[in-house]
């Protein structure tokens, strides 16, 4: 797994590549928490090069979404989700908890 964070004026774009499972989810959580700790609560997670995500990754997304939405200070949105990962998120009932975008331009522009 590889994570890169880009800070824009209105939001952070966090790109996660590779595989998020129980081994790598703690580092994914740390990247999301770091944004929150820096006072950034508007986050777009770019999944265009994400191959795999288990419920350990879903847990990290849920915890961050809760933190971002607290006090209406922001939210976390998902970008370019592959069909496989979208199906798993749907099965877990997670798709209604996150706005989704087909590309980063629309996602970043939504904030």
């Amino acid at each position, binding site marked *: 797994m590889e994570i890169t964070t880009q800070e824009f004026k209105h939001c952070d774009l966090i790109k996660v590549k590779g595989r998020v499972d129980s081994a790598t989810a703690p580092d994914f959580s740390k990247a999301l928490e770091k944004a929150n700790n820096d006072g950034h609560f508007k986050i777009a997670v770019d999944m265009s090069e994400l191959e795999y995500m288990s419920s*350990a990754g*879903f847990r990290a997304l849920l915890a961050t979404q809760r933190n971002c939405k607290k006090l209406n200070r922001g939210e976390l949105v998902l970008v370019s989700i592959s069909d496989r990962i979208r199906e798993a998120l749907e099965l877990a009932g997670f798709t209604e908890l996150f706005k989704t975008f087909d590309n980063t331009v629309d996602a970043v522009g939504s904030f």
Partner: protein
Amino acid sequence: MPKITFPARFELLDEIRDLVAHTARDGGFTEKDIYSLQLAADEAASNIIEHAYLGVADASIDISCDMQSDIIVITMHDTGQSFDPAKVKKPNLEADLSDRQIGGLGIYLMRKLMDEVSYESNLTGNLLTMTKRRR
């Protein structure tokens, strides 16, 4: 059925998913179903490492993965704490963000992704068996 012993560590999940994908691909499963099988096996092994072997050093999981006609059969044997997946409450998938519980999601996904999931515990340990028929 040949068994492979994996150290019970999250770093080995990649190899467990590879083993399942290899058997499933040889068995003629679609790429969509291969992803589902990998996810179910990952969730099962993660639960064993996280819950059955909580705090146990040098633990291991015996895993087998085979085709029996057009059905893939995945078994995982551990010697950790037993638990009854039937007693794990189904997560409330309708709950709003603040009430959403993440616990139990792994088992819920395993059940949804596989045709059958069974669990037995005895003096020699715990045996999880999951099956899925090729479509």
